[in-house]
């Protein structure tokens, strides 16, 4: 196999080296054999859930809320004895904000940890990366983030019978408020986003709807993830004589973008509407660069209803200091709805759980009523438009709700095969 020196070493030294070599080469073995899997699909052990969450890398700021939401719900479920008499056990994996790692970790959770189902992944790119794995393992994935909707069969993470969407898509997050923004702040929209599927697809849908409503798209631009300088983009926005800047720049990039928008002096002459900056990234942007701007999501910490007050109390008690956002809350809802589905189906088996989730209604969500549409696994959620208060001091006084819709029926998905069923 390997090319040895033709002369060859002496027999004695060969044995010696071989023995030592064995020790060195065998070192990785314990790593291979460590970590036995327990639990599993059936039986009476705990129900194991694989949670994929960005605990390191650029999206760690969202990972905390993401995980905390699911953990809080899990604690509440376990406090009531779990589901079907079985406790929930979370197996958390760090996605490192890297879709490649998501593929790898999802495989580990499926093949080695034998999880019963998955929850999490943060961006659409991460969901897409996990999709082939959950399909191959035939496990469900509960996806919490606002996303681009299911209009392109191309990606494995959309129109996938094993994935359930607990976050809103553009027809829920954006459409209800377009008319309000047009009438109040002007017809000239500039669409600027980070360069990946969610901003591009969201803007495509927004453009179509704007045309319907008589708005005008005066510009569209995308910045690669990791951009620090937005000078050129801001000039384009200025030259287009923009009324409303519709922003889908995400993560730390959005912090830089909005800080630079403020320093360019352009902020005062237009209205910013962000569909990516929730409580945690707005905290990073700061009061000066965010004052008076709009954001729209299916949940805000500022919501004043008894369910949310109760949720906030529980969250603050369990994870003090965690900045909660819509993604964390949708993780929370996903856990509770999965628990209801398991009880309803009497099993954690994928097919039964899928049937249990379909058409499930969850009345106790912090934002109101959540219904899981059977046909395309899309949640129907409330939707809110909020304005950032001047001189806010923290998440409690950051957003002021200006418009709200109790439940938006999302646009129909355009998947090739509906309803989503496993072939």
């Amino acid at each position, binding site marked *: 196999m390997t090319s040895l020196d033709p002369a060859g070493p002496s027999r004695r030294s060969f044995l010696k080296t071989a023995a030592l070599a064995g020790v060195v080469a065998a070192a990785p073995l314990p790593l291979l054999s460590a970590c036995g899997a327990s639990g599993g699909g059936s039986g009476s052990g705990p129900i194991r859930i694989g949670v994929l969450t960005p605990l*390191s*890398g*650029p999206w*760690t*700021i969202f*990972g*905390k809320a993401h995980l905390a939401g699911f953990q809080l719900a899990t604690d509440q479920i376990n406090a009531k004895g779990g589901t079907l008499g079985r406790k929930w056990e979370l197996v958390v994996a760090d996605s490192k904000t890297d879709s490649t790692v998501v593929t790898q970790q999802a495989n580990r959770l499926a093949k080695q940890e034998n999880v019963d189902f998955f929850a999490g992944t943060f961006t659409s790119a991460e969901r897409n990366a996990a999709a082939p794995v959950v399909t191959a393992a035939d496990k469900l994935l509960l996806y919490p983030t606002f996303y681009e909707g299911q209009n392109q069969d191309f990606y494995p993470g959309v129109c996938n019978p094993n994935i359930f969407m607990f976050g809103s898509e553009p027809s829920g997050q954006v459409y209800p408020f377009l008319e309000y923004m047009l009438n109040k702040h002007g017809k000239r929209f500039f669409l600027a986003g980070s*360069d990946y599927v969610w901003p591009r697809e969201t803007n495509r849908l927004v453009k179509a709807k704007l045309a319907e409503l008589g708005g005008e798209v005066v510009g569209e*631009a*995308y*910045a*690669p993830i*990791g*951009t*620090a*300088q937005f*000078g*050129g*983009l*801001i*000039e*384009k926005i*200025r*030259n287009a004589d923009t009324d409303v800047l519709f922003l889908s720049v995400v993560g*730390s990039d959005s*912090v*830089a973008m909005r*800080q*630079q928008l*403020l*320093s*360019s*002096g*352009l902020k005062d002459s237009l209205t910013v509407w962000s569909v990516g900056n929730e409580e*945690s*990234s707005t*905290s*990073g*942007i*700061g*009061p*000066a660069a965010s004052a008076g701007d709009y954001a729209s999501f299916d949940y805000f910490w500022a919501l004043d209803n008894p369910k949310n007050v109760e949720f906030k109390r529980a969250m603050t008690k369990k994870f003090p*200091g965690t*900045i909660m956002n819509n993604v964390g809350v949708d993780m929370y809802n996903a856990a509770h709805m999965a628990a209801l589905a398991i009880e309803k189906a009497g099993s954690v088996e994928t097919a039964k759980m899928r049937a249990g989730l379909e058409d499930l209604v969850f009345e106790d969500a912090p934002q109101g009523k959540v219904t899981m549409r059977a046909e395309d696994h899309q949640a129907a959620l409330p939707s809110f438009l909020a304005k950032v208060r001047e001189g806010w001091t923290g998440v409690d006084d950051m957003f002021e709700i200006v418009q709200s819709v109790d439940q938006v029926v999302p646009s129909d998905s355009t998947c090739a095969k509906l309803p989503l069923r496993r072939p």
Partner: protein
Amino acid sequence: MDSFSQVILDGATGTLILALVALGLAVIFGLGGVLNLGHGAMLTLGAYVTWACQMHGVPFIACVPIAAVVVGVIGLLFELAVVRHFYDRPFETLLITYAFYLIATQVIQIVWGRAVHNIPNPLPGNVTIAGASTRVYTIVVCGVCIALLSLTWLVMYRTSVGTRLRAMLQNREMASLLGIDASRTYSAIFATGAALAGLAGALISPLFSASPDMGSLWLVRSFFVVIAGGLGALVGGTLLGSAVISGGTDVFSLFTSQVFAQTVVFALAILILRVRPEGLLRKVPAR
């Protein structure tokens, strides 16, 4: 021509801010010969120290020097404990400073959490110059950058310390014959570079906020500044390199996509390196 003057102003402020960020890297690389992969972590550390210091009620203006000193001391300790044994092996110093990056970034997250922290702008308000607008604070940061670059130039070319440093750069053995304590000098260089990184991190924190990964975003750009600016020509090189990288990206992105602009500018930096391996300003090879 509002737009034109705005481009000029944004280009100028962008250049100066990048120069400020890259200066610490240029000092350690140009004078110490160490490619400091930990530079990004030092920036981040500076921003977080500033944030933590403000949380304790210390005014921003006092937090900035505190951040510089704290990061400088950390840099000094790191140099004394580890880096100093490796000056003759540049690849090893690169690996060691990368280890510093890994460790520091993680410690920052463990100590201060992963949230993006906003540092309030100490000088709110905008200023208009020839029809172009920017933040008052941005102008102040640019002023500090100009002051620092001038100071660096003065130290390098108008003081005996600078003469010795330049002597050491030219010929290490000759310098030691002249009684220059190379070991101490290197410690001082590393600590100064670290302090400059901390200072830059502190100063830019109100502009970009503090997040655990802010450093890696700036690190690559700073490296390109060093590529374009070249070794040795500390002040002029850093300034020119920043102008190429920052101004170039901004100007190109006016005509084309941001992505293409970035690629063109990076390619340009490589081209500069080919044509003038020792930097745009340097005529005589350093070795």
